[in-house]
């Protein structure tokens, strides 16, 4: 695995952990209290998916800070480098949207599979 993929995975870790937390923290509620897991959790997960997509579209993944660092250290930054930054940003955005879809999928799975258990 090369460098850049490793970094991308680092960025992906955060939303995945968020997903696991959402799913896991409500399990005790479901087990010990009156909480309709099947009704609420898919909706919450689905909404979170949308929010993750939203973050992916609006967050610059630290590009601004990176560019200001580049300027601060008097490094050169030409058009190609900027292109590259934009491209990487776009790829990250697509990845986040993909994760959003993963949320949707999980939501459907919870809704459809839970009654079978």
């Amino acid at each position, binding site marked *: 695995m090369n460098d850049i993929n490793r970094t991308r995975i680092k960025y992906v870790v955060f939303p995945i952990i968020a997903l696991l937390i959402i799913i896991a923290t409500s399990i005790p509620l479901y087990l010990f209290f009156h909480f309709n897991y*099947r*009704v*609420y959790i*898919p*909706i919450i997960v*689905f*909404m979170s998916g*949308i*929010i993750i*997509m*939203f973050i992916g*579209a*609006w967050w610059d993944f630290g590009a601004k800070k990176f*560019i200001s660092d580049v300027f601060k250290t008097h490094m050169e*930054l030409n058009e190609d480098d*900027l292109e590259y930054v934009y491209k990487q940003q776009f790829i990250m955005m697509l990845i986040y949207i993909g994760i959003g879809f993963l949320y949707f999928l999980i*939501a459907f799975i919870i*809704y459809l599979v839970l009654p079978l258990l």
Partner: protein
Amino acid sequence: MLVLFVLVILYVMFRLLGNPAILIFYSTKHHTASELKIIEAELGPLAGPISFPNFIYYFKDMLTFHFGDSLFGAIDGHQTVIGAIDAALPYTLMLFGIAAVVGFIIGLPAGIFTSFLRGKKSEKAVITAATLLNSIPFFVLAIIVYIYVAGYYHIFPLRGTFPVTDLTKPTIAGVENAFYHLLMPILVLVAIEAMGHLLTMRAAMVSVLGEDFITTARAKGVPEKDIMLHHAARNAMVPVSTRMALEFAFLMSGAVIVEVIFTVPGMGTLLYDSTIKDNITVAEGGLFIISLVVIFAYSLVDFIHAWIDPRIKV
């Protein structure tokens, strides 16, 4: 993306009220189970019980503009929510669009002009007036204007209602009629909007005029007029165009309020009525459409921004 985000917020907001069908159910005279079923059927998936399929249906329906029926009978002859919005939206778009453009056209040059007056007494007068106007809430100014211009002197009509065809299928007489009815609300919006632009533009101009390159331009013998228009104004536009995006949301809320006061049958009146009457479906659809308009206006600003300042790319 922003659209989906708005949908999530709307869902959470309206669902915190509980199941709308049940709310309505309790307000009816006959509390029977069959009655509840009937109401739910009438509301469609928009207002069913909270469940995952319902949520998905909600998304689908919202994105395809199926907002369901109005809860309490037809509004101006429109049974469906989308029909009512369809009838009201042109008024609001007209009001909002004209006010935004005219406010911009008046506010920016006025701001530049005010920066010409540096240090004079007239500058203080302009700034005081602009600050006063800018800080008056829309409804206060609207009511004052309404009482004087329409109520006491009858220069403009008391009721802002006019046929929507004047806007959708314009004829000369129709546009004239629309103009006659809409002038007052537009003026109120423009007055406040333009003053905001004026103040921001002036502040930006003053800070740009202090920069060294302006002195250089002056030393180059560039006429004062050109310095203002070419060298300073373009640099000063950057903060103004940033502010413009924020201003849209503010202006939209203003348009909604002003419509109610001048009884223009636009989105504002529609929203106001539906909120008063707990007409949830109409409120939901109306809010969604207004958000769409503002989001669209936002994205326009980004394009303007990139054109003004080449450094923005970085």
